[in-house]
């Protein structure tokens, strides 16, 4: 980061010495995905917490398919090294917990692991869905994992992340895209988070035959707000992953939008998404591509004002762009034809925000709209299940963009530093998460909201 003074300072020789002495957190350089990069840069440890674990087999198969060296005895020496040599990832099958007493096995696996995962390492815990347990002891044990993982994420160092996946009963064979995302460097800025897989019933799909280097090959993806910033990065990422991109933005941003579209070899659609007929215009434009597979609702605006000074015009403009436009477009997508409209098995990904989860001073309208997005996702998910489609949201935290440039220095520095990864994220981190939700192979992930915030300490 060019202007991250703190980062520059801490990473200088002198700075490292000072930072070490006074306990300032180091700023690790996160490993990020590049084409051709292997799933993991080293070996992986695989553990099971109970004899009833039901996902270890699947994890083993996925890792083997990705060519990862897997060790199941945490004490065994690895790669000619010792039993304390570094591993790139550790995965724990923590399904089948019957009481909080079983958590000890989780601790016994993770304790050595915390020291053994290398820089930008991955610790992934897979548990059962608490809500699917009726007995208090079982549910308590399952729920405990979340507190454990969120806390462990705050202890992990050097860019390592710790995340939790809840897998619904019967969904153990539907984990592949999730495992690949959380283990790869595509999830660089996702830390201390929980994701549920297979919790919305009636899903259908397959990850068989997926080209993991280009997982959205042949898909048509609509990205709103694509002229600049995160939207532009999303367009580039989806194009990189194989999609034909329809880049949408307001007509006044058409110049930059045309650059985005030409850069990714897609098409540009100048459109005010709050206008009447915006949804029809998108469907109409995409008929030339044979319909739509992926819609990324990225367009959003802020009109920050303290609530005490708020006026209704500003308020409405934020709600209209950030929320009502999405509702209207989704209604049309749902009603459209499978043939040349929103295809069966389609994906909607929308952008919420930390402001919608934790709130933010001066952002009552923005926060309201972004919390509304979460409600939209929860309610739309079961509707889409009939179309074998999904809807999910990312909630970015502090991402280094032009928008954050407007923040006062103190807030900005706090935003960067008060995360488990001790830095701000990049637009690509949000884009990678969106592109993962957009994969056909992510068919079992529906109704989820995933924070891409490096486990920011602010608010929630």
């Amino acid at each position, binding site marked *: 980061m060019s202007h991250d003074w703190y980062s520059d300072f801490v990473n200088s020789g002198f700075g490292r010495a000072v930072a070490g002495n006074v306990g300032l957190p180091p700023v690790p350089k996160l490993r990020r995905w590049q084409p051709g990069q292997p799933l993991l840069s080293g070996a992986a440890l695989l553990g099971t917490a109970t004899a009833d674990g039901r996902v270890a087999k699947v994890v083993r198969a996925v890792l083997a398919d990705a060519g990862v060296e897997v060790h199941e005895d945490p004490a065994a020496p690895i790669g000619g090294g010792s039993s304390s040599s570094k591993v790139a990832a550790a995965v724990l099958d923590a399904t089948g917990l019957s009481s909080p007493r079983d958590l000890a096995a989780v601790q016994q696996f993770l304790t050595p692991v915390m020291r053994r995962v290398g820089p930008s390492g991955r610790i992934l815990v897979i548990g059962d869905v608490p809500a699917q347990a009726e007995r208090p002891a079982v549910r308590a044990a399952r729920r405990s994992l979340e507190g454990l993982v969120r806390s462990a994420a705050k202890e992990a160092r050097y860019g390592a992340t710790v995340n939790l996946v809840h897998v619904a009963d019967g969904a153990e064979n539907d984990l592949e895209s999730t495992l690949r995302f959380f283990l790869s460097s595509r999830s660089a800025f996702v830390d201390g988070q929980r994701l549920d897989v297979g919790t919305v019933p009636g899903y259908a799909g397959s990850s068989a035959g997926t080209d993991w280097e280009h997982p959205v090959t042949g898909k048509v993806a609509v990205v709103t707000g694509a002229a600049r910033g995160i939207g532009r990065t999303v367009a580039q990422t989806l194009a990189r992953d194989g999609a034909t991109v329809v880049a949408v933005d307001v*007509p006044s941003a*058409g110049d930059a939008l*045309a650059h985005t579209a*030409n850069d990714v*070899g897609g*098409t540009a659609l*100048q459109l*005010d998404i709050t206008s009447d007929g915006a949804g029809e215009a998108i469907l*109409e434009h995409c008929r030339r591509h*044979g319909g739509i597979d992926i819609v990324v609702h990225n367009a959003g605006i802020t009109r920050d004002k303290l609530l005490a000074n708020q006026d209704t015009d500003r308020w409405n403009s934020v709600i209209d762009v950030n929320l009502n436009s999405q509702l209207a477009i989704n209604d049309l997508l749902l009603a459209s034809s499978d043939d040349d409209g929103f295809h069966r098995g389609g994906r909607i990904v929308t952008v919420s925000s930390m402001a919608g989860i934790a709130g933010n001073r001066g952002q009552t309208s923005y926060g309201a709209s972004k919390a509304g997005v979460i409600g939209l996702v929860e309610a739309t998910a079961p509707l889409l299940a009939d179309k074998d489609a999904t809807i999910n949201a990312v909630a970015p935290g502090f991402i280094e963009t032009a928008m954050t440039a407007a923040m006062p220095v103190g807030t900005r520095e706090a935003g960067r530093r008060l995360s488990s990864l001790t830095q701000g994220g990049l637009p690509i981190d949000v884009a990678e998460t969106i592109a993962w939700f957009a994969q056909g192979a992510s068919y079992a992930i529906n109704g989820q909201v995933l924070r891409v915030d490096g486990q920011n300490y602010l608010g929630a």
Partner: protein
Amino acid sequence: MASPRRAAVVGANRIPFARSNGAYARASNQDMLTAALDGLVARFGLTEERMGEVVAGAVLKHSRDFNLTREAVLGSRLSAATPTYDVQQACGTGLEAAILVANKIALGQIEVGIAGGVDTTSDAPIAVNDDLREVLLEANRAKSTAGVVKALAGLRPGQLVPEIPANREPRTGMAMGEHAAITAAHWGVERTAQDELTARSHQNLAKAYDAGFFDDLMTPFLGLTKDNNLRADSTAEKLGKLKPVFFPAGGDKAEATMTAGNSTPLTDGAATVLLASDEWAAERGLPVLAHLVDAETAAVDYVHGDEGLLMAPAYAVPRLLERNGLTLQDFDFYEIHEAFASTVLATLAAWESPQFCKERLGLDAPLGSIDRGKLNVHGSSLAAGHPFAATGARIVPTLAKTIHQNGGGRGLISICAAGGQGVVAILEA
């Protein structure tokens, strides 16, 4: 008149038009044409695609821009294997380019092409005057250094005054506005009618912007998102307060009716239009806005022949109508280029005049009047401005989209051009 097939108007892109020496003062024709092409490429996903042909032109051109269109294509995102050529038919350039592309498509020689036009009066080529030109050419021909020195020694300060190209007819020495003023006086075109037509042009263009009509016809450039000549609050009353600027030569000052308001300003801009066969469009799932049915050009002897400089379309249209078995009233929309408000009104008056239609056109009955509610419904050059060669490439897609939105219909385009020429065409869907 059966043709093998009709060329389809598929879509378009232009940059907003800017008043001279304003937003685009530093942009060249090539810069603007390339920007317009790149916007079209983005709209239709034509990155690295080879077009059958790109045909465009500019009225005011630097000598280095002899291959302007080719240079623009080479700098654009289109395939470098796209052939091009330049055309120049004054203000008819853009429409003539569209006709040429459409004809090749109709004949099956190409499947898809782009027509366009661009002009800048801000970055106009400045020529040396004839005296200096003689000296420089002589110096260039000199075989020795001494010869060069001798040739250049003859230079006088007065010879260094550059010649800035003027919007003037070489054979009459009169500005186009002065010619139009004569025509206006001849036809007795009222000042108030001109101002009303002008105000309607601004109001119609403003409404079109508000309705998002140009969202898929335009891409912003250099910070401009709308034609900056547009005055949405324009009224005939306000326009009525302006002083006349063009006077009919040898006429009465009292006859002067033409102001800076009811005449088009000098404008910079570029426009492009994508034409293709129906098959090409269908393969790509692109809707056809309209087809180019037929076209006609005409010229009048404005020098010695007692006809107005900008009256050629009055002759071209009846020939086009006759060939297609149509009357002037058989159209749902009319796009008559507003070089000057008086030009539009004089042309309409001519078609209504039994005497003109009989004596000049050889018709038994006048062509008659048109429903003015169908004229330039999304505004025209008085409001948008008029970068000479670009105007035709603005009007073709505007009319095509108007017909498409109407669910079908027929439209007439009429464009007058310097040199006493006119280019007219029929679109249909």
